[in-house]
């Protein structure tokens, strides 16, 4: 889930068929989708997205300990070895999310 740009086949209202779309995420929320054929871009309302992001953030924080625990339980060695990097990288990741959300303001 750490990827910020993903691809999926969705119907394009402009092409009137299923095409591959590029999807940009900030944290757990979708920021925009772009059709790879006609380049039609669909964006969330920026204010709405920011509001939703702020609403989602406490939920992310509250569920983090259990998610970390589950990750540890699944693969203790991998979890311990990647934790320092993930911890130090978190502020930068959140900064990227903030930029993704605010760049179209």
């Amino acid at each position: 889930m750490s990827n910020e740009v993903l691809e999926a086949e969705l119907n394009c209202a402009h092409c009137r068929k299923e095409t591959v779309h590029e999807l940009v995420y900030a944290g757990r929320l979708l920021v925009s989708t772009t059709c790879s054929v006609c380049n039609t871009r669909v964006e969330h309302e920026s204010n709405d997205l920011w509001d939703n992001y702020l609403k989602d953030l406490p939920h992310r924080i509250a569920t983090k300990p259990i998610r970390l625990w589950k990750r540890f339980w699944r693969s203790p060695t991998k979890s311990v070895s990647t934790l320092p990097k993930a911890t130090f990288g978190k502020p930068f990741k959140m900064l990227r999310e903030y930029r993704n959300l605010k760049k179209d303001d």
Partner: protein
Amino acid sequence: MKSGIKAALVVLAAGSGTRFGHTTNKVWLPLSGRRIISRSLVNASKNFKHGRTILVINPDDEEMARATLEREVRGIDVEIVYGGATRHESEYNALQHLAPAIKAGEIEVVLIHDGARPLATPALFVEIAEAAHRHGGAIPTIAVDAREMDTARSDTVVRVQTPQGFVAQQLLEAYNSAAIDGFAGTDTAACMEKYFPTVKTMSITADVSNVKITYPQDLAIAEHVLARRGYKD
């Protein structure tokens, strides 16, 4: 409260598979922190005491499917079945997988659900299963104004969603007969209607929020609905 009906919950996710190392099937997209298919699977199986959960996938997506189940659908025993080229074939494959249990009477009702509908609630699955158990079949519908589609029409028109539930034995027979005849229905109800026209299929009033992720906007709608539900179900 959990339903005691012996149900098989078939979730279809056998769309286009992995390409160049990454899948383009929308069911594997994240939706508010969890993949669309994970939400569909958890909601489908949540309220059944004796449920068997079947995930129908494209063989190319197996690695992704197993990793997703391990990470996001823990605690539910999900059986993976390979789908076919069409929805009908995927349903047939799932029913063949379940055939021994259906013939042994271990499954009373089969519910078939589109994996791209992550917002169908656990309560809807139970409602469909109970109605199908009582009457033979049940499908979730939303009434639409027929004049929106055709101004000359005045009859009642409904938009059909999933999960669609039917008595297991008859559903298996219908799909076996369809395989012999070369018939492929547009959905589960179409196949049942052809081979068991007298079976009563109940129309259960559904919720408009049970969207099928089709257009990019549907993802945004689904995020809003989940936020409104407090990220539950």
